[in-house]
Every structure is written in C-alpha cells, then in structure tokens.
C-alpha cells in the first residue's frame, strides 16, 4: 500500500540473469538493468521467492541480485500451494502464492504460463 510497486523476479528470469550462457541472458540482463535503474529511483521494489534466489546466491548483498529483497516462504505458503489449482507444479504455484500474498502485479519471467494471469509480464519485448 505504502511501498513502491513490487516486481517479482521469477525463477526462469533469475537463472537467465545469472547464467551468461543462458539462451535468454542478454534479454534478461537488459531488462534487469532497466529494473535496477527504476529500483534506484525508488519507483519499484525488486523481490524474489527466497528459495529461488537461494539457488543462485547467498544471504549477503554482494552479488548481482543485491537490490532484490527475499519473499520468505513459510509453511502456510506451502499449504496454500497444496490447495491451489496449480499444485501439480509446486515451483510455479509457490510463485503465484507469493505474488498473491505480497500483492505483486508485475513479474519478470520467461515462463509463458504467467501470461495467463492478470499480471504485467516483463521483458516487454517478449510480447512484441
């Protein structure tokens, strides 16, 4: 409500940014740098599911994802995943649960399934 809008960096996007050999790395890096500029101007907050970010970096803030805050997953979120309509893919479901709980409206992703939801999906070039 009082915070700048949150942009959730989804797992596929995080991996694309982190891995220079990834097929979507260039698009992801360009989009990420644009998001970082918006973050620095206090226009948005960058967030990621803590387990997804934890696959790539440690808890310190001395890495490429230094501006990204973690959305910590608790047992109640896992329970919500099991009760969700997308429970067959827990990683996808946990992202949706955390997006819903934290009122996220924009997701940075290369996973096309997010286009099925009322979310703004970036990179914008993906739908051009």
């Amino acid at each position, binding site marked *: 409500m009082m915070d700048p809008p949150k942009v959730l960096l989804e797992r596929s996007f995080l991996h694309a940014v982190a891995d*220079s050999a990834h097929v979507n790395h260039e698009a992801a890096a360009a989009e990420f740098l644009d998001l970082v500029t918006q973050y620095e101007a206090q226009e948005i907050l960058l967030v990621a599911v803590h387990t997804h970010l934890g696959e*790539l970096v440690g808890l310190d*803030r001395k890495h490429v994802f230094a501006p990204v805050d973690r959305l*910590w997953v*608790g047992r109640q979120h896992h329970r919500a995943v099991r009760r969700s309509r997308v429970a067959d893919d827990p990683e996808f*479901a946990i992202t*949706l649960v955390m997006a819903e709980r934290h009122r996220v409206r924009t997701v940075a992703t290369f996973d*096309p399934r997010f286009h*099925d939801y009322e979310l703004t999906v970036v990179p914008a070039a993906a*739908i051009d």
Partner: protein
Amino acid sequence: MSTTAEAPTFVDPSTRPGFGKGLSLTLRSVVPEDDFRLVRLALMFEFLFVYLWWLRVQGLPIDRISVAISVALFLLCAFVGKTWRTWGILLLDCAFYCVMWLAYERTRGAADDGVSVFGLFQIPKQLQVESVRNIDRALFFGHDPNAVLQDTFWERTVRWYDVGASTTYMTHFVLPIVVMAVLWAISHRQWVRFMKRFSTLLALACLMFVILPTVPPWMATSPKYGYQLFGELHRDAGRGFRHIGFYGFDSDYKVQLSNGNAYAALPSLHSSFALIVPAFFLPWIRPKWLKALVLLFPVMMLTSLVYLGEHWVIDGLVGWAITGGAFWFWNLMERRTRARRSNRARQALS
C-alpha cells in the same frame, strides 16, 4: 555464475491459447486466500472499538506500561496467522522498541547527576534557565511569548482554544505510537524507515537532555522553584481535554517507568513528534494545499506548548531541527544503500 536448472526458453505468448481474448485469470482464482486475513481485520476493528471505549470510560493511556500493553494487544490482533519468521522479526522489533524507550527513561538519572565522559572527567549538571528565556526574548523583540500568550488568552473559564491546545498537547502520547503500530501492521519496510528517523531524533534529544538540562517556562516562573524569571505561568495542560470529558489514564502499577525528566525542555519532543508524523507521510500526499495543512499541525503544537507554559519557543525550533536532521541523514543513507546495491548489480553484469 552458471546454473543447471531447467529454465524455460522463451515461447511467444501470443501463440498461447486465449492470448488477447481477455481470458486472463486472477491470482485469487487459483490461489487460496490467506485464511487469517479477515480474522486479522476483524480483530483490529474490535481492538479499535475497545480502545475508543477505554478512551471514553477510563481515559487516554499515557504511561509507558499502558501504552506498551495497548500496542502489544494491537500487534497480537494484526499478526494472527502470520508466519513464524514474521513473528520472530516482530519480537526483535519489539525488543528494539523497548530498549529505545528504556534508554530514553534512563536519561533522567544521567541528567540529574551530570555526565561522566568515559570515566575521565565529569560534566556537571548545568541547568539552562535564563539562556533559553533570553533566546526567546531575542526572537520576539524583547517579549516573553509564554507570558504574552497567557496574558492575552488565559481565562478562568475554559475557552475553545484551550480545548484545541490541550487536545493537541495530548496527541503527543498517542499519535507517534499509533503511526508505529499501523506501519508495523501494513508495511515492515516503512516501519523500519520510520523507526530509524524516530530513534535518531530520540537519541539526539536524550543527548541534549543530558548535556543541556533545561528548565521549562512553568518551572522558571514558579515560586516553588525559586527562579521566578517573570510572572508565574498557569500550568494545566490537560484542562481543555478534561473539559470535553476526556482524561489521561495512568495505570496503578508501582513502577510505570514514566520517570518524566522535568529538565527535559530542550529540545521539545512534543514538537519533534508532531513534525515527524506529517513529514514522514508527506511524500504520499499529493495536493499541495493538503501538504500545507498537515504541516500546520507542528505549528499548532508549538503554539499550544508555549501557551500552556510547557516549553520555550526555542525548544520547539530545536526539536524541529533535529527532526529535519534525522530525515536528512536517513534519506541520504537510504539513497546511498540503493545506489550501492544497484552498482553491484551493474558491475556484476558488465
């Protein structure tokens, strides 16, 4: 950095079934809602009703213990059903909150005994009495603002402006605490931002209370204390509040922790707290007239304090200055933190 995780490759969304046909799903339609959200809302409304009832029947909780209990009860309502991690963070926050207020209360002893600097030497207690009065007189061309306001407006009977001044004065015990509690409930990030500024101004104020213990105007004019710088001022900050049927509530606990430091006039925390709240919310207020209106509140507070004989004008001005200083410092720090984190991201990708 490399990854072995299976990352989906890009699929043009326009090729997906339903794209562009308005078939987007809401998150709520696939994800169950937080079961406790409505429970929390109901409990918080219930708390509000009980608080208002208590205010009407028992009075406004003003001592530290009563305020702490009311904040704790509100937080219980606001955090029901949240994750254990969130509760853990809340406990740490509460510990910080308690330490901050205990440190504030402890300055009374330090102010009474003088200050020992690393055990090397002692700064004796040097009460400021005439210095602050002289500054006020210099600011108001030889007049004492406290005396002028009371001579002009104070009457035997309670007037409408007494109610206004007294109510404004009493908001000091509620407003910052309500803001903290609400921020705690709605945005931990904003709570942290508020508390950084609040605790900084409180620390600066405590330091000044110890180094420059200052006699307030009511004491400086009371025959009881022997200063009598000018004609005795009336001192009854609560009379307007009582006139409309409200009272301050002090718990009966033997130890209330409210060891108010009578020499803590400079800076005025009433003025500081009255400024920190509107100043914090200013960025969210769009219309300029509304910004100006909310900034009238600290002016109203300082005028009330001077009229009620509680503070010198300079106390309020210094209170505003340290509030401004706390904002300046933390705005700078937060900007630097964002810049440092952003640069790390840029460097890692360059």
